[in-house]
């Protein structure tokens, strides 16, 4: 049986766009909203979001893949909101719309990179969000909520060490050197981290402690609300460095048990350029999201239909 997919314009002036993928049989499972990864339109990196949506729909989850303002086929905002506030408002508008249009009551958010940061920030602010899959969430949007000085904050400080250890020191061979002349190196970021290092690592200490404390408090609040999160990381990304620094201890100590699950995806780069890495992520999501489907079935919902979207393959 075909999975039904419906294109929807929504928000003020109908300027936002998303595609709703629905299971062939209605269920009480939470609706999944998939946010843009950076500037990539709703199809997702290498069409990953389409595969995800159709796969989750086959498991009983309605999935809404949306374009944030100014990305893909959504228009730019016409108000004076900042970029950060604007995308949060986009997500709120999507949740409001889907609550009305599709009668969804609970939401899971999925995002890669910037999409993960927005997912996290939206989960903090909207009680209708009951969970999220955050893939390489970086600093969870912490810099956006603190002072401008946080641009040179703990994350960058820590990244300096990572960069020295993994890029300059470990791989300082002729290929790396050649990279500086062939455009392979991230010059802008390298300059930033080096400048930051020169300004002194000590300054970052207090910022790091403050960020760590804020994050832990936020995750505890999410846990108290019953919000569950899957944090998925590539095995060598800067995002993982931030996790190691800020959250790993709490997770391993069990302080966030029941709230946070963590998966490190082997051989995965930031935009899932191999089919193998895509499959790894999809399997991780399947495993993490299964309890939501079971809970929906137990709550007296219609049984989830078996089988996938035969006519809407990935």
């Amino acid at each position: 049986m075909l999975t039904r997919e419906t294109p929807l314009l929504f928000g003020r002036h109908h300027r936002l766009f998303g595609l709703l993928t629905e299971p062939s049989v209605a269920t009480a499972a939470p609706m999944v909203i998939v946010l843009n990864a950076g500037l990539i339109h709703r199809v997702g990196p290498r069409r990953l979001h389409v595969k995800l949506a159709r796969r989750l729909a086959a498991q009983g989850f309605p999935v809404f893949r949306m374009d944030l303002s100014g990305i893909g086929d959504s228009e730019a905002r016409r108000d004076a909101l900042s970029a950060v506030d604007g995308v949060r408002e986009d997500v709120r508008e999507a949740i409001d719309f889907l609550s009305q249009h599709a009668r969804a009551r609970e939401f899971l958010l999925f995002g890669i990179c910037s999409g993960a940061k927005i997912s996290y920030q939206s989960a903090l602010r909207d009680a209708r969000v009951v969970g999220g899959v955050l893939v390489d969430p970086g600093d969870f949007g912490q810099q956006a909520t603190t002072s401008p000085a946080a641009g040179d904050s703990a994350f960058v400080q820590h990244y300096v060490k990572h960069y020295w250890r993994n890029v300059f020191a470990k791989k300082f061979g002729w290929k790396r050197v050649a990279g500086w002349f062939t455009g392979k190196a991230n010059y802008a970021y390298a300059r930033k981290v080096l400048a930051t290092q020169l300004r002194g690592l000590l300054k970052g200490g207090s910022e790091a402690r403050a960020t760590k404390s804020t994050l832990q408090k936020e995750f505890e609040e999410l846990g108290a609300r019953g919000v569950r999160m899957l944090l998925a990381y590539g095995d060598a990304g800067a995002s993982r460095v931030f996790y190691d620094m800020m959250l790993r201890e709490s997770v391993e100590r069990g302080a966030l048990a029941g709230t946070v699950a963590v998966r490190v995806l082997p051989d995965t780069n930031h935009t899932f350029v191999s089919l193998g890495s895509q499959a790894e992520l999809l399997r991780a999501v399947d495993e993490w999201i299964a309890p939501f489907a079971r809970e929906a079935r137990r709550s007296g919902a219609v049984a989830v239909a078996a089988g996938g979207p035969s006519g809407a393959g990935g």
Partner: protein
Amino acid sequence: MEPVFFGPEDHSLFGWLHLPAGRAPRRTAVVLCHPFGQEFMLAHRAFHGFARLLAEAGFATLRFDWWGTGDSHGDLEEARLETWTRDVALAMRTVRERVKCDDVALAGMRLGATLAALAGADAPLAALLLWDPVVDGATFLRELQVAHWRETRSDAPPATFDAPLTEASGFPVGDRLRDDLRALDLGATPLDRDVPVLWADTQRSSEGDTAGDADGDAVSAAGPRDALLRTWRERGVSVEVQSLPAPAVWEEDEQRVLVPRLALEGAVRWMEAAC
């Protein structure tokens, strides 16, 4: 602009229909044909802009995702070139039904341009705009394989690959599509002499071609592209070459989504003159 699914239930394609605002559409509608794979992802926003500019110029315009790609249904591993040339025909029928136009022009980029030319050989066209088309499928396969290698490995790609291409930068390439691409030769495509053709070139924009230049001397350098242009002209095909003032948007970084407005406006002007 209006999002649309079209085609039969088992071959449903997603697209956007852009209609001119506040005026009747021109008698010619335009169907836009996306590039393939990661090139499509990087060019998506440019096509969004292209369709909007065409609609502002009065052309009802349909842009759509190939079967098995983007938001369209289907599994890419099962796709082949013939699937997609039929998609072009389906899109042309759809726009004719929706807009009641007299005729349809095609415009495509990279593999999308080549598919437009292939599809146009079987259907009457008002005009054909080829933006850096894939001339030779075997070369294109090699380019895809090199790009995939560079994205997934740190060492230099080999001169020849031992194994055939099965995935291209995160997009599966099935056996049949690979065989189709290997045999693809744009030069073998019979183009109608009466259809105006624009060869829009961004890769060679610094090599002397000038906007509106239809002079064969401007493209006399060696290479498959130039040989193909000579062949077409010898057959009497009316092909014009323009260098569009734009980078190759399909080669950009994912963090730089470009909409080359000047180039798109140039393409729209050509379409206005041709139709």
